[in-house]
């Protein structure tokens, strides 16, 4: 009973609205690119080239060797070697350095005597995540240096060539460079699609009411379902265009590997986009003015997909209550699917639960949204 012609007329009109209105065009096409570039470049969780200062109290061959070890590490950038605590204090306060290594005056004496030399490491803990990573890297550098010294001493004592009892050979799968952008970009695609879909859609019905056109539309043979499907078709096309832009930028501007099947990626985007559009429609059905719809749309799409989806903050580390909430955040499943397809190249046999849950979410929200919308359109 649904007329394709009426639905198409509606979709075409909606397209024209988007292309005629600079605001919505910017929202639809420029914002995804800006978000991707901004977050892609700015939101790096990698800790590299930590600005470092060394206070070498001793100034011996051994202490210089340790400094050289830090200089040789890609995680540290030794900014200066100083001769008192004063510049360290100043530099940490000014945020010029993050970490300082203090080599005590008895460093080489302790080493040569066979005792344990004590190093002091000072860290700016105001960014706790980076600080703890920096400490771990510093411990790594020091441990390596320590092991090297041990071997050398044993050698000198004539114990013959020593072997290292345990050697770690770690190999990182899927994101072998451990580049944070490799997992940020796929996550970002989810955030962008969710926000764009919810925003464009949430405004659309409120706009018809505000312009006073809804009553006219309802007096025509156009059915509410056709109205909704027509509008969704237009936004779907915009969302799909955004997805293509985001995938291309991720792949070619940021060099994120795309190992899995494009078809599966398209399917995941399709299901997720549909659910997000339905969510926008539901907001639209509940809010009759554009401002309210916009605000609700932004808050309910951006925040959960950013904070509760496992995009940046790992869900395992959240309190149990918050973890429970994440189960109803669709981007949670979408991000797993995206990371799987982009980085692991895994397929439907492993990702079907995510796709199934996304489809379920879309179906439920669609059912609720069309029911609410129908009630609102028919009773009013």
């Amino acid at each position, binding site marked *: 009973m649904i*007329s394709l*012609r*009426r639905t*198409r*007329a*509606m979709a*075409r*009109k909606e397209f*024209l*609205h988007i292309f*005629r*209105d600079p605001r919505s065009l910017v929202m639809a096409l420029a914002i995804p690119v800006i978000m991707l570039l901004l977050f892609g470049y700015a939101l790096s969780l990698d800790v590299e080239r930590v600005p470092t200062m060394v206070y070498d109290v001793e100034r011996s061959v051994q202490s210089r060797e340790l400094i050289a070890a830090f200089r040789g590490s890609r995680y540290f950038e030794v900014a200066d070697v100083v001769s008192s605590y004063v510049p360290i204090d100043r530099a940490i306060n000014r945020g010029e350095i993050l970490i300082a290594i203090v080599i005590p005056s008895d460093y080489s004496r302790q080493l040569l005597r066979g005792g344990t030399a004590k190093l002091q490491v000072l860290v700016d803990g105001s960014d706790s995540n980076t600080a703890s990573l920096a400490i771990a890297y510093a411990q790594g550098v020091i441990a390596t240096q320590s092991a090297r010294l041990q071997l050398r001493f044993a050698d000198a004592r004539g114990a013959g060539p020593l072997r290292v009892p345990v050697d770690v050979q770690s190999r990182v799968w899927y994101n072998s460079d451990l580049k944070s952008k490799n997992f940020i970009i796929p996550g970002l695609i989810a955030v962008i699609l969710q926000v764009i879909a919810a925003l464009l859609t949430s405004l659309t019905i409120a706009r018809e009411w505000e*312009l*006073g*056109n809804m*009553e*006219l*539309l*309802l*007096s*025509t*043979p*156009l059915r509410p379902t*056709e109205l909704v499907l027509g509008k969704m078709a237009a936004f779907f096309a915009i969302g799909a265009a955004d997805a293509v832009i985001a995938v291309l930028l991720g792949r070619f501007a940021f060099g994120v590997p795309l190992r899995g099947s494009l078809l599966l990626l398209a399917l995941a985007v399709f299901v997720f986009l549909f659910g997000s559009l339905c969510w926008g429609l539901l907001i639209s059905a509940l809010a009759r003015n554009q401002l309210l719809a916009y605000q609700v749309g932004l808050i309910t799409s951006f925040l959960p997909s950013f904070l509760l989806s496992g995009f940046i903050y790992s869900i395992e580390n959240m309190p149990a209550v918050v973890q429970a909430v994440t189960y109803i955040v669709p981007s949670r499943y979408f991000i797993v699917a995206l990371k799987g397809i982009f980085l692991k190249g895994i397929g439907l046999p492993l990702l079907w639960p995510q796709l199934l849950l996304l489809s379920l979410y879309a179906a439920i929200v669609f059912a609720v949204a069309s029911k609410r919308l129908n009630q609102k359109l028919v009773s009013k």
Partner: protein
Amino acid sequence: MNAPVSTPAVVIRSLTKRFGNFVAVNDVSLEVKRGEIFGFLGPNGAGKSTTIRILCGLLAPSEGDATVAGFDVAHEPERVKRSIGYMSQKFSLYDDLTVEENIDFFSGIYSVPRDRREDRKAFALELSAMAERRNSLTGLLPGGFKQRLALGCAILHEPPVLFLDEPTSGVDPIARRDFWDLIYQLSEQGITIFVTTHYMDEAEYCHRLALMYRGAVIALGTPSELKRDLGGFALLHLEVSDLLGAMDALEGQPGIEDIAVFGSGLHVRVKNAEQAKLPVREKLEASGICVEKLDRIDASMEDVFVGLIEAEERKA
């Protein structure tokens, strides 16, 4: 799809619509003939819009029933919607679409058959005198042209019944006159037009009128019938030497219902014109007021409107 000629275009029987305890439409019955221009008058909140919305299938009646173009509005709203055009006081067109895009959109949602589309588009462009400006953005058109374009869009699917809800509000008088010329043309083609308005001069253009007040139809007839009956009153036009003195003198006299200043004279509503003339003259002259003119006149639609509503308010 057109109703047979014999059946009226719109039939309303004991129609009542309640919203909670509020009765928006109270036991309204009327019929509108095919090709008639039927005017719906009344103050805001009188129930005109609610009635029209029921007739357009947008609202279900609480009691009673109505048919439009032969289809029951409560049970066959889809068929009703295919048989009507609706144009509301808001422009109802998309300002950010061009003239042609608006026409194409409405042609699409009204399901105009493919082979009729070009014809109907040409018709709508001609009706709105927009053929040259088909690629202009609708938002840039003057109000009168937009109005005609909205009308053109509302009849793309050749509906037998057309609902116009205050179609000319905010349009200049010349454009309004042109618009009414169009409405007459459509009526001559057999289209039934159901129009609400609050312009009294427009009410006079209608073939028949219903006056709604507090949910009920309190008067129904042709403009001349309504003016003649005036709800059981007649109107005297007086020109006197002292307007305010005359008002004071006549106030509360037997047989005098209402006195209002009208231009340089007075309009006095009386029960019976011929019986009232003499006592009025005598009373004024006794008060030392010189009566220059004292005639029975035909009421304007405004007099009818005000008189009927005041009579209703006195009843309440």
